[in-house]
């Protein structure tokens, strides 16, 4: 439960040059603050666009508020990032996580919030915390974020939760980085694995979260948490294209 114990917004390291200068996510290069901010912006945009779809998925097997709640939370994340521009990827992620925990409520607030905070904390404690992180460090942090969700939500693969999108994405990302793939390609593979994972929840019987109360009746519906997780991971690939374009 460590991921959940610290309420303060992460302070980051204060090192580095800040977000504006030369965002980079292409090649084998580092992932900088601008990339992480772009990721959060893309995720917020996609969640806003798909808000009604997420809420409809939730209406089928939950309580019809997933899109509304996440949209509210990610709008607040964007506002927080504008008000206090982060100076490192770690700081951006911890600020996003703290904002989601403070603003969303429900289960998705603490779960996504803890994931981002744990990512930030892992980057912050890495060998070279600062304005840019290596793809390998980013993949490791992503994995730590997913582990935080598993621990907090007590969910495992196959339970029909966001883990079913996040865990395959984490594996794909780590594998791609180990194989030495270009960063953008690695993030694209993660996005694909998350989308496949979300679709794979359709035939599953929910064992965690509110859909679990339906038992067998949850079969035949995509899990709204897995669907939103796939959107958030897809935003990684979009952000990579965007920030590497220049």
């Amino acid at each position, binding site marked *: 439960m460590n991921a959940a*114990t610290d309420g303060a917004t992460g302070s980051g390291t204060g090192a580095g040059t800040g977000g504006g200068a030369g965002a980079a996510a292409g090649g084998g290069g580092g992932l900088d603050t601008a990339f992480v901010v772009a990721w959060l912006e893309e995720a917020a945009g996609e969640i806003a666009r798909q808000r009604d779809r997420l809420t409809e998925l939730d209406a089928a097997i939950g309580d019809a*508020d997933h899109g509304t709640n996440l949209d509210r939370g990610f709008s607040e994340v964007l506002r927080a990032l504008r008000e206090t521009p982060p100076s490192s990827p770690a700081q951006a992620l911890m600020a996003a996580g703290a904002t989601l925990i403070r603003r969303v409520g429900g289960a998705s607030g603490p779960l996504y919030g803890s994931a981002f905070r744990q990512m930030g904390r892992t980057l912050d404690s890495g060998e070279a915390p600062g304005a840019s992180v290596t793809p390998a460090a980013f993949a490791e942090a992503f994995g730590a974020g997913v582990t935080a969700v598993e621990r907090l939500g007590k969910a495992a693969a196959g339970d029909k939760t966001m883990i079913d999108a996040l865990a395959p994405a984490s594996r794909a990302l780590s594998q791609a980085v180990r194989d030495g793939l270009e960063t953008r390609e690695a993030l694209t593979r993660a996005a694909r694995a998350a989308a496949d994972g979300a679709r794979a929840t359709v035939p599953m019987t929910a064992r965690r979260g509110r859909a679990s109360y339906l*038992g067998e009746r949850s079969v035949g519906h995509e899990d709204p948490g897995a669907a939103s997780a796939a959107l958030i991971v897809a935003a990684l690939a979009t952000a990579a294209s965007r920030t590497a374009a220049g």
Partner: protein
Amino acid sequence: MKKLINAAESLVDDALTGMAAACPGLRVRDRVVLRAEGPRPGKVGLVSGGGSGHEPLHAGFVGYGMLDAACPGEVFTSPVPDQIMEATRAVDGGAGVLHVVKNYTGDVLNFEMAAELCDDVTVASVLVEDDVAVQDSLYTAGRRGTGATVFVEKIAGALAEEGAPLAEVARVAEETGRRSRSFGIALTSCTTPAAGRPTFDLPAGEVELGIGIHGEPGRTRAPFAPAGELAAVAMDAIHGDLPLEGDLLVMVNGMGGTPLLELYVVFAEVEAYARGKGARVARSLVGNYVTSLDMQGFSVTVCRLDDELTRLWDAPVETPALRWGR
């Protein structure tokens, strides 16, 4: 959709403004509903909370003999840790604070986070998990907290008012939960203001069995039937899990859109059912206490009383939604 709202986004705040204006015994601050008089030194504080849309739960149960604070979230969405922390600190009279938490993943996570962050206050927690419609806790998030929450808040609140220490208040809260079971049936879905249309479609000739309190679909559907048969379905489920015996506290609860007239019809059936099993309905509540917005339907909650619980149930209470003896 026709709803008496100004805007879906401002619904909870607008309602809290009205509640504060209507209830001089309450004070509303940053989405925390408190007793106006503040904490009493040496008394254990009781804090509960959850999504809005279940009124009068929880804010309607803030007052003498029951809760010290309630934290309303967005509609059907648990409150955030900040609210719970603020409530916890605000009601601490030096004797510690009991969190009454309904078993939903979101409620549990947010209350856990708040309790961990409130390291300056001694916090105990009781989980209410009374809904027998959720069968196997190995393959689910566990039984939902529903109607028994009212019993736990009333009975633990009464003991706290007597000045009992936190461990005792927590014990009686646990005991109340352990002795309570619920089952709910919906005749219609409900419409959340943000979604604007019913959460699920229920044909005219069918009912949902084993619903929770968030408009989520139930375990199964069944043909619509007379009140006696529907009451028997609920009571069979409860009796099958915790056999009815001795003195019972029974609540027949409306889901928000059911006339009280019909709830009394259900209560008559429930009372006869209990008598048929050799038990006695010694105390009762009939009305809308744990609702799901505008849903039509009812839930039954049964608690097997003992002398201590009966005495605490009968103790004076003065809240917007429950008041007697004072």
